């Protein structure tokens, strides 16, 4: 069964969700599944089960078979108890969401989620799905089996830069018999910073060089300028490294992919400027290009600064600076 409510038309599901949303307490990083926020409905299999039960009862009445009555009532009681069990499988669980690492738009944001219990019971087949889950994804399934807590991750599709939250996360389960679908909507308070998707092309950036629109558009600065760089060392190959920077000799020696690294004079500074970009590009495209430039500049070990219409980051280098710049780009509002 997929995550949606079984057997209800879409508009009713949305109505229920809106109603449930109002009943839900404010978003929190850790939520204890409360009884009043737990909903339950029979599944398709559940309805099938109960209709077979009804058939058995009718047969028993007609032929006056007391064991038939017995079986029908036994199944009915089992079905109702299964409802209690399904409810109980979710009731009282604590769901905690942890900060998600920033991603670029288009990548899945992975929220790490842990579900824990106070007791030591079996809570198998717990499933999570978010409003923002990629449609193709199976719900995340976790099994809390006689342990205090279990970890998993909830993948969210991202399409826009900025902050993304898991939104209404649906925690559901049909354990043990699959006759009932119990669920709770959790407002999980966590956010993931989504950077703009980097533009596809790479830039060979030179410190001190004033870049103009032209050389941005023709995509690659020629590789023959490489010679003027100072060779700084060899590091592990990273995705996106240029072929002509591959340290072929080192690769032959070690069998691992290595890349030559060049450094520029640390005093040289590179400015990545908004107003240097082609004015015909729209904001998102500009941000994409700037994002790519930040990445490339960082990769090439440059000192770079970022100038946006509303803010300015002084030239610097390092991981923290890169993240700072990317955050500026992600949250840029024009």
């Amino acid at each position, binding site marked *: 069964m997929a995550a949606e409510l079984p057997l209800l038309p879409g508009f009713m599901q949305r109505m229920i969700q809106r109603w449930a949303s109002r009943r839900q307490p404010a978003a929190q990083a*850790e939520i204890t599944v409360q009884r009043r926020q737990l909903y339950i409905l029979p599944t398709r299999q559940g309805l099938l089960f109960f209709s*077979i039960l009804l058939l058995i009862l009718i047969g028993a009445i007609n032929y006056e078979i007391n064991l038939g009555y017995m079986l029908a*009532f036994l199944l009915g009681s089992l079905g109702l108890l299964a409802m209690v069990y399904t409810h109980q499988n979710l*009731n*009282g669980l604590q769901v905690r969401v942890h900060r998600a690492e920033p991603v670029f738009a288009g990548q899945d944001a992975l929220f790490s989620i842990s579900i824990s219990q106070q007791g030591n019971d079996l809570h198998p*087949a717990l499933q999570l799905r978010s409003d923002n889950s990629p449609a193709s994804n199976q719900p995340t*399934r976790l099994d809390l089996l006689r342990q205090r807590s279990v970890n998993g991750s909830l993948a969210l599709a991202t399409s826009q830069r900025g902050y993304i939250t898991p939104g209404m996360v649906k925690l559901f389960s049909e*354990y043990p018999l699959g006759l009932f679908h119990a669920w709770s909507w959790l407002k999980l308070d966590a956010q993931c910073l989504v950077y703009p998707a980097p533009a596809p092309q790479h830039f060979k950036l030179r410190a001190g060089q004033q870049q103009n629109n032209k050389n941005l558009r023709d995509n690659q600065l020629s590789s023959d300028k490489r010679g003027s760089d100072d060779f700084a060392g060899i590091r592990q190959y990273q995705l996106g490294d240029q072929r002509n920077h591959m340290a072929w000799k080192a690769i032959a020696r070690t069998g691992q992919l290595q890349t030559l690294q060049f450094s520029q004079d640390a005093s040289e500074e590179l400015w990545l400027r908004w107003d240097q970009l082609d004015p015909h590009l729209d904001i998102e495209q500009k941000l994409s290009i700037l994002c790519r430039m930040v990445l490339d500049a960082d990769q090439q070990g440059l000192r770079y600064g970022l100038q946006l219409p509303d803010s300015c980051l002084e030239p610097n280098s390092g991981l923290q600076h890169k993240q700072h710049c990317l955050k500026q780009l992600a949250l840029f509002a024009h």
Partner: protein
Amino acid sequence: MRVALSRLIDVKNLPQQSVSWVVLSLVLVITPHLPRFPLWSVFLIAALFIWRLLCIKHPRWLPPKWLLLLIIIVAAWGLFMHFGTVFGKTAGSVFLSLLLAIKLHESRSRRDYMLLIALSFFIIVTNFLFSQSIPTVVFMLLSVIVLLMSMIHINLAQDTIGDTSGNSRSHSHNLSHRDKLKLASRLLLQALPLMLIMFVLFPRISGPLWQLPEEKNVAVSGLSDRMEPGNISALIQSSAVAFRAEFDRQPPPQPQLYWRALVLWTFDGRSWERGKHNPTPQANIQPLADPIDYRITLEPHQQDWLFALDMPLNVPDNIDYSSNFELRAGEKISSLYQYRLSSVPEYIIQPQLSPWERSAGLKMPAEGNPQTRALGRQLAQQYTEPQQIVSQVLAMFNAEDYHYTLNPPLTPGADSVDQFLFQTRRGFCEHYAGSFALLMRAAGVPARVVLGYQGGTLNPLNQVVTVRQSEAHAWVEVWLEQQGWLRVDPTAAIAPQRIERNLNAALDASEVRPLHMQLNSGLMQQLVFYWDAMDNQWKQWVIGYDDKLQQALLNKLFNQKLPFAEMIVYMLVSFMLMLLVISLFIMRPWQRPRMEPVQRSYQQFCNKLAKRGVKRQDHEGPMDFAQRAAQQLPQQAASIELISRAYMRLRYQANASDKLLAQFQRLVKQFKPIDRGGSKTDNPPAGGSGK
């Protein structure tokens, strides 16, 4: 909304274990049916199961749809040829089993498997049309546990294939079989009290709404309405219970236990039959002793006749009482049937012989058995009193070389009575009764054969007399002046032990006995008594629980007759109460830990602000909210910020101390936001030193 739009995903290939579980469940529910199934269908079903199991390893062997359809059509035709219908009790259960075995071959998704399991419950219930014994119900409970385990397994196996979320470990083994068994048993145990309430209080309606079509070729063991050499001795092989009798007082002694069922009037030279309806207007009985009251619980025998101790005096209104002193129910007995009777052990019936009875009681076939006729004529000349003729023949059986045996030589041909009386002289009760009656008629004494049972085992544990098929018996009634129809049992003349004690005692030591008699010794007998007593209770209270018994029970419980609607109310109320009790037992809300203290306090804080119109929005972080709240309630800005900071530290700092928590809780407690327009400022932000 994407959640609503996301499509239903049927997992294409469930783990192989699910298939094995479903096969196990189906085998389990079909097994009790097998003895009734035609042999070919047993093999077909078994082959289908084995085939499917092999397909687990070799998925390419799964049969194409047209082949499955062909199998269904051929099987339906076969069933029609065998039973004359496909929807009868037996035929229907064979057909359903076959359909499920075939459906198994084209089941792929979890939903298909759940359908198979659900229909398995239906197969269980069709078995109850044939048997409702204690072993059946025990087997049902076992099957239910296995079916529940299958359901748990199938449900746990779902959604694991194609799990793209990264962790590819197999989920199907995360709950051990032991866990599943424990869970299934716990569910079952908790369901039992609920079931019991419904079973007792669900209003019973009498009478069927529809009938299943009749089937041919269905064997039922029991008395038949004709008697020919060999058909009673065949019944002796069965130890099945025919009926049970509970006497209000001491049960009569063994030799008086003649349970009459049928009176056979006509003889065609070989077999005795009931003949035409006896038109004699009134059954006339003069009791010569105190009546004996008793209740009979009759096993379904698919016939309409009932059994009564010689001679029934008072019968219930719904039972037909013929001038042959036979009882008939007016419908075939297809489920357990109970009735109360009173009989008199000594009596005179029909002191005036009606003309029809005289002619029917003397009627001889046109020809055959000349020696018997001659002996009869000779007796009639020799003795004037019919009484003397009767004793003379009984004396003859007793004195001469006649033997009582289960395995008499065959007497084929038209003169079977002659053959028996004058040549073989070895026979069972049907031989003696048949030849005696014919001899009487030849001698001019009106006689008729009576079929029924003689004897029964008194269970010392519950004083119930159990009469089994092996106690089937035939005897004779002759009509004598002033004495009316008088019971004469020729078997008693040859083998008095049969009547005094039982068949086992009457047979020669050399005789090969049926298995059930060989086992009947000492400890075994004791066990049989226990089992029988239990079985009787089961029949009375569970299988025989009907509208009358229900009313009687409810009368006792509520001291009044409950109308239908009220009964349903009682049923629902008590069911719900029980469900509540069990649910509380499962949920144990008193053990449930509440919200974490940090969150609880923070929630209190948010609630206090919400009362003053500052509501925390969805997705609003605690600090953002604090900022907004501080703007809206500037007087409280300091404490709002203090509380929010403490909250953030408690939430997100790894080593937040208990002291901080206590401070935080105190701050929240003392926090009293006032209306923006309010004038009360009696709460200077407390705990300023808490930092």
